[in-house]
């Protein structure tokens, strides 16, 4: 530090007469900037690859301008006339104008796709009518109804009204097994089309089961690794890590080879007389397959945090408890177990959140009953209905955040130890 002098006014200053406080602030701000520049690449990376896509996804889940952007006249009519107005000639004229423009700009498919999300079977109505839109002449109401009677359907007009603004909650309604009634209210989807709520429930249930299974299987293994001499435990650790480093697909398909009804496990059981040819177990392409394969795949995520917490626990604690007369169960329950809770918390949270978002494994081994909600997200992505996929994903994200919050309230996030 430079020489400092105490001036007559009582302010500390550096040798060149500047007050020490500002000189220090300047020197520190430079250091802060340098530190920030070191962090900046990561910050930028997180912004670009994480925050922005998630923001975009959330935006997509409530925003679809495929109709409103390409149907300006009709959207304006909806804005000017409140719900309940009978669509008259003015509305049909606006519709005809927009359909003619749609033909020119090749956007009829996009428009129809948007309406088809809310009212099935209408996409071809738009594409077919747009194809012959040039021939439409006033009075447009009669002309369009002559083209196709469906143009008079009140449910169609309700769907178009809903789509006339780019912002819409309809994708969230679909993702919660709800739909719009013809008068604009909200009602439950018909029973044969309800699928999402049930799958959300199943996803959380199966994730919970998998979490418990990994804990039950992983806890003793982590303990063994933690108490063995380092040389032996390192060797065993490789056995834990080797599958961890193997491709997810390879591990999943290995389970198919093992568990299928003509697979290794069934063949061994039949050969040893436990089962007969007729009673071969169906252990894959159902929920059991999903649980078994995902438990195995997620096991390292439980073992590693547990191990990192157990390793530093001195064995003398349990020995001390035993010497003071505790039974082995009591020593475990009151001395050892409480010290491993941070590891259990970390592992459980990690496994649960990973399991909630898994989709390759359930897709390959889950059959019909082992499908999770993420399989439907993937399905809608592949069908180009990104808004619905985004809405389901957003609900999943919200549910996980709520669980995280609950977890923080009940156990405390400070209690978590990842390594």
């Amino acid at each position, binding site marked *: 530090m430079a020489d400092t002098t105490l001036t007559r006014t009582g302010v500390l200053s550096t040798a060149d007469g500047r007050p020490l406080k500002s000189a220090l602030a300047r020197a520190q701000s430079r250091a802060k900037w340098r530190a920030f520049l070191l962090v900046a690449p990561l910050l930028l990376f997180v912004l670009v690859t994480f925050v922005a896509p998630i923001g975009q996804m959330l935006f997509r889940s409530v925003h679809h301008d495929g109709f409103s952007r390409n149907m300006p006249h009709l959207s304006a009519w909806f804005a000017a006339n409140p719900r309940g107005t009978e669509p008259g000639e003015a509305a049909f004229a606006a519709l005809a104008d927009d359909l003619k423009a749609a033909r020119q700009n090749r956007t*009829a498919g996009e428009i*129809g796709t948007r309406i088809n999300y809310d009212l099935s079977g209408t996409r071809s109505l738009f594409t077919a009518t747009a194809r012959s839109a040039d021939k439409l002449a006033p009075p447009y109401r009669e002309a369009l109804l002559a083209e196709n009677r469906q143009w008079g359907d009140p449910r169609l007009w309700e769907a178009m009204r809903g789509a006339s603004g780019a912002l819409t909650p309809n994708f969230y309604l679909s993702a919660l097994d709800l739909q719009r009634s013809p008068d604009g209210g909200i009602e439950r989807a018909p029973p*044969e089309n309800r699928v999402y709520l049930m799958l959300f429930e199943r996803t959380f249930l199966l994730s919970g089961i998998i979490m418990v299974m990994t804990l039950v299987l992983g806890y003793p293994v982590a303990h063994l690794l933690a108490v063995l001499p380092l040389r032996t435990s390192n060797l065993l650790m490789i056995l834990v890590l080797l599958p961890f480093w193997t491709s997810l697909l390879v591990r999943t398909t290995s389970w198919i080879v093992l568990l299928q009804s*003509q697979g290794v496990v069934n063949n061994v059981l039949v050969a040893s007389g436990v089962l007969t040819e007729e009673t071969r177990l169906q252990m894959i392409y159902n929920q059991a397959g999903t649980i078994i394969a995902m438990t195995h795949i997620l096991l390292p995520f439980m073992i590693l945090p547990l191990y990192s917490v157990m390793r530093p626990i001195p064995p003398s604690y349990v020995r001390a408890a035993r010497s003071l007369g505790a039974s082995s169960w009591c020593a475990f329950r009151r001395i050892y177990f409480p010290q491993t809770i941070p590891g259990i918390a970390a592992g459980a949270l990690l496994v649960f959140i990973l399991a909630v978002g898994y989709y390759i494994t359930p897709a390959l081994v889950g059959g*019909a009953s082992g499908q999770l909600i993420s399989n439907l997200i993937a399905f809608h992505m*592949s*069908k180009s209905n990104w808004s619905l996929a985004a809405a389901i994903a957003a609900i999943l994200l919200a549910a996980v955040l709520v669980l995280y919050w609950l977890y923080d309230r009940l156990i405390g996030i400070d209690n978590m130890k990842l390594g």
Partner: protein
Amino acid sequence: MKRLLILSTALAGLALPAAAQQITVLGWGGAYTVSQVEAYHKPFTAKTGIAVISADSDNPATPIKAQVEAKNVSVDVASVEYADAVRLCDEGLLELIDPAILTPAPDGTAALDDFLPGAVTECFVATDVYSTVLAYDTTKFPNGAPTKLADFFDLEKFPGKRGMRKGAKVNLEMALMADGVPAAEVYSVLATPEGVDRAFAKLGTIKSQIIWWEAGAQPPQLLADGEVTMSIAYNGRIFNAAVGDGKPFDIVWDGQVYELEGWVIPKGAPNLQAALDFVAFSTGTEPLAKAAEWISYGPPRVSSGPLVGKFKDGTTDMAPHLPTTAANLTNALSSDLEFWVDRDGELNERFNAWLAAN
């Protein structure tokens, strides 16, 4: 094999310093991509010096939307299903292909008259007709094999697990045909709520015995593993397993549902002119016929039919194995594109709900 071909194609591109130009073609992988590499990619490179890089995707239509919307298109030509081509075209995600660039038949017939009806649209040129059929393991039925689609739904006469694709399309049509609906009326029945109920009810009769697959490579594997005794499958995959790998599989052509598949060019393709040249070249009469010698998908050009010779093994005539051969078309259904573009969302939603319910 496939990787080797991609590698050799890529190396061929490197070995020709003059051929600075190259295009990327996105295909489905497996035997299908092999047929395209042999019949289209290699001859095209030999003729023009433009290297062709072959890439694979589970469904090439899926990345197109993502690439075009992100304005980062790396694919020049993609092989997609007809329905996806129409959908992507309607959404303005594809380049237009002027039918005038297509080569006429050897006898001078204009290209548009030579292709099957609907095989050329403004964004799409068909390369083949593929079919979804009933396939079975011949060793599993010593007392008489299935002969018609309805047998797939007959658990008493033909017990055992069955494989089906996880999705509404084709399954609903087949359920109705097996329930006695003539092929010509399938879509008008399926357009009614009663028809949909009827199809799901028919599927429900065998639901407990179905193993659902997602990728086209799975059904031959399921059959080979003995996991299923019969499966709904793509005819090309079964042919390759049966004739190519000598597996004891056979096909029931009754009730086949056939569809077109072909090239599209994503909007903003980096090498548009070369991509158009490639499309024009590969959909010529001879390359299409040649491709049918590598995989049993029928050529969509009338003039290609007689040119299709023997399979690469040199002994198997291809004609009886193609969906487009007359004998195989006696009770066949052409997949209805408009129907599925309209009803895809609703019927798949119902299918998923039906599937998930126990």
